């Protein structure tokens, strides 16, 4: 699967990691990185920061469409399966009802619709996030361990068209980064 192979930048550097002290610092730095036109970058926080997706300029995820298509597929599958079984493959009279008794099919149609939609949501989310991933270059950084504790990070990947090892580092420093680190691939 090509998208799993192309998930990381090629070349000697993975990118630049900048550490910020507070959510507010990170939030404002994200707005500036977004306005500077970077596209291949990310923010990392120990807890959800409200409105950060706006500050980062993230487009809406295609996940809802995946869920909708999966949900409709599941519902159609559930209904079609019962139709085929009860009205075509094994026509049995059950409690005096016609073979094609659609009300009886609704609970399973509903359940399969929900089940498939949930699969779409979970696996679609994993796929879009390129997960599971066994290792990531960011984990080489010692300071990055604090991302689950009390530090806030911006990482800009080296394959961003605007990336430049010294210039991008200076930009992040000027945005109030506590530390800036160039990471190897």
């Amino acid at each position, binding site marked *: 699967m090509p998208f799993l192979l192309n998930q990381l930048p090629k070349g000697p550097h993975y990118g630049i990691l900048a550490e910020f002290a507070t959510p507010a610092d990170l939030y404002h730095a994200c707005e500036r990185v977004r306005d500077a036109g970077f596209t291949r970058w990310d923010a990392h926080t120990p807890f959800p920061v*409200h*409105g950060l997706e706006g500050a980062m300029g993230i487009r809406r995820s295609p996940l809802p469409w995946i869920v909708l298509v999966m949900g409709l597929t599941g519902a159609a599958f559930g209904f079609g399966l019962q139709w085929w079984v009860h009205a075509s493959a094994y026509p049995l009279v059950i*409690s005096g009802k016609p073979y094609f008794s659609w*009300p009886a099919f609704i609970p399973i149609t509903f359940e399969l619709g929900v089940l498939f939609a949930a699969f779409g949501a979970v696996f679609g989310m994993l796929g879009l996030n390129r997960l599971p991933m066994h290792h990531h270059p960011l984990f080489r950084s010692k300071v990055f361990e604090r991302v689950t504790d009390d530090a806030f990070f911006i990482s800009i990947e080296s394959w961003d068209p605007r990336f430049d090892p010294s210039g991008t580092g200076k930009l992040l420093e000027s945005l109030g980064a506590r530390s800036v680190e160039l990471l190897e691939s």
Partner: protein
Amino acid sequence: MSSEHHRVALRPEQAMIPTGHPWNRFPVIGAACAVLGAAACAFLGAANPKQFFFSWLVSFLFFLSLALGALFFTLFMYACQGGWGIVVRRTCETVFATIPVMAALFVPLLFGLQDVYSWSVPGAAEHDALLRWKAPFLNVPFFLIRATIYFGCWSFIALLYYRLSRGQDATGDPTVSARLRKLAGPSIIVMALTSTFASVDWIVSLTPHWYSTMFGVYFFAGSFVGFIALLSVVAAAMRGAGLLDTVISTEHLHDLGKFLFAFTSFWAYIGFSQFFLIWYANLPEESIWFKARLEGSWTIVSLLLMAGHFGVPFFYLMGRTVKRRGWTLAVGGTWLLAMHFVDLYWQVMPTLHPEGVRPSALDVAAFLAVGGCFVAAAGWLMRRQALVPLRDPRLAESLVFENA
């Protein structure tokens, strides 16, 4: 994060209907409709009293259910300390404060009890074992006592919440909110029981042999959808009319849309579950009700409800943009309000017209009369009060609310 920068303090004059604003005319418009409707009812109803009482029952149930939905919604918000909806809470309060008016609009029905409820005809139980069995519950004196209890409980809770919330505008006392939150739990229990019994008394007993253990929830689901639809329309209209346009944001519309979407599905879930169990077991005393609604032109109404009260709005309200734009949300709300009316019409009217759908001018007249009183009462209250609970301790939170 960013929202903290736009924290606004609301001045009372920003939250009132300005003098000369067209919304000041609602009491007059409502009263005019009521007078017109009442005159038409008197004129047409004299010739056909039976039709009048049924038409009146449908319209009465429609507007009453909106008021009950408003009260439920407000109680839920207090009980779970919902912050987002504080900006629309005064609108809810205005709607449920009309419950005493609804009590007055119930009175005309008492003159036609025997026309509407076959069990109330003297001697009805004599040759009917089931009605004899149900007589200790289904008899006129107890029916009246129960109606008094329902309206007593509803009016008491409604006026308590309305008065204390209005009072808080003046005093700014935060303990009022805490007190109303404590009372919300018990009030919800009282509301659930009374509205269940009321729906059995006023709708189920139209077919006195029938029973359904889900009907109370079905009535609640319809009422709740109806009210959220009304609230969506009013909130969007307010923004359109330049009222609270800086207060009610796209985020609030979005949440109302989500509520509307969710409870449309809830209504369908409950409605189908009720039908499904009765259809599957196929016991005569249960299935008569649906049999009457799956014959002749009532079949079309049944299908219309499936598609129009669930299928179409389900897909229409699913997307994000539809819920975040005032006019698209208002279209969905108006449609569901109409469907809520069709739902009640479908519950009541087959008793009068088992042969098929027979629309009547009295349906319109009764709608105008009851609706006019409802609009006049709500419009009159709106002119006299701030359109948001100005000094609710959580108003600031609601003003800056954003969907994550």
